[in-house]
């Protein structure tokens, strides 16, 4: 008996956005394994994944990129910092809120930067728009991460916030570097 099944091809534009989301998820995972110690704090490169996912892909595909990152970690790939994995690390881990915050942050950054689902060329985004988008993303990460950390560790909110305060200037520095990369024309045509 002959069987017929039509092939429903994915359109070229969606394939391009999808592969960028996949590779930015992999890049976020790769950057999570590197950090630069600065005195008592660690300079993590992970937020760049969120910044570039939001700026390059917009809210939908930027969110897909970070969701893929979380899902492969939950599935067991050692993609979280220090090569950890598992749903336990996300739900009950001290930094699980920051991981979820990266996902929401990418969506917020993309929504502010592109003001719609379809991403514009990154060169068309003005500096003030990029600053507002990435600052909002950082604010969202801390707004989710600090209360989450307080609940998981039983620390008072103020103490959890004080523990994370040294990282805020570093994240603002990362934000500036991300915008400098866009303004430097390194992502022209993307």
């Amino acid at each position, binding site marked *: 008996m002959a069987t017929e099944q039509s*092939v*429903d*091809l*994915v359109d070229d534009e969606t*394939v391009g956005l*999808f*592969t*960028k989301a*996949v*590779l*930015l*998820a*992999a*890049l976020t*995972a*790769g950057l999570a*394994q*590197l950090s*630069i110690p*600065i005195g008592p704090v660690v*300079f993590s*490169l992970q937020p760049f994944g969120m910044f*570039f996912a939001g700026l390059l892909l917009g809210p939908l595909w930027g969110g*897909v990129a970070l969701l*893929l990152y979380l*899902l*492969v970690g*939950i*599935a*067991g*790939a*050692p*993609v979280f910092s*220090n*090569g*950890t*994995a*598992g*749903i*336990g*690390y996300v*739900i*009950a*881990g*001290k930094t699980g809120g920051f991981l979820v915050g990266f996902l929401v942050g990418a969506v917020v950054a993309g929504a502010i930067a592109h003001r719609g689902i379809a991403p514009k060329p990154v060169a068309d985004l003005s500096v003030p728009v990029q600053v507002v988008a990435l600052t909002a993303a950082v604010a969202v990460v801390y707004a989710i991460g600090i209360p989450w950390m307080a*609940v*998981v*560790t*039983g*620390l*008072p909110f103020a*103490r959890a916030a004080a*523990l994370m305060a040294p990282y805020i200037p570093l994240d603002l*520095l*990362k934000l*500036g*570097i991300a915008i400098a990369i866009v303004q*430097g024309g*390194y992502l022209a045509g*993307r």
Partner: protein
Amino acid sequence: MLSYRPGSTVAHRLDPRSKLLFQFGFAIAAVAHPTLPWLVGTTAFALCALAAARLSPLAVLRSYRIVLAVLALAPFVAGVAPGPPWFRVDPALRSALHVGRILPVLLVSAAYLTSTPVRDTRAAVQRLIPGKPGQILGIGMALVVRLFPLVLADVREVRDAIHARGGEARPLRDRVRLLAVRSLERTLDRSDRLSVALRARCFAWNPTLPPLAFDRRDYPVLAVGIALAVSPLVSV
């Protein structure tokens, strides 16, 4: 590092969907009540899950040692006071109970990781989320797992190249910018090549999925998962 190990234990034979739901329900139940009896109960439950996967609790603790070491600091931070008596026991104990809740969740998570291949979780996600979103996430997961080692190698190569050129002496801002730019360029080049490869292979919305079998033994696990997830609603 914890990763999948082939085997034929009870945990290996369960469907990934029931195991995922069980983990989710267990995590909700474990964090619902920061009390000592509840902690003892959830830890005993988690040890049963480890036994079902024939996994040593010590091996799990070793794998999560960095996470646990960081968590262990929380009670000390909570107990430190800015004036006499300098350290208060009550907040430290409260924090220790909160942190203790995490251990059983990590144990159950470890049982899942070692008994479930990533491709099964991918298939479970693709089947649990209907339509195109499920397709995108399922295929995306498979590709991220495949490409992560390559992208990580790229990033490390860029970092080593910067070091080899005396980059450590440069200001932090310059080092980070160089690392981010070069890593991103390589990543986006890979994305372009992957895009062409997928289109050349007729990337479609309706590919063939790996088979999953939701068996009779999965129903009790599913039921326990749901019961655990709603357990915080029941007063103890």
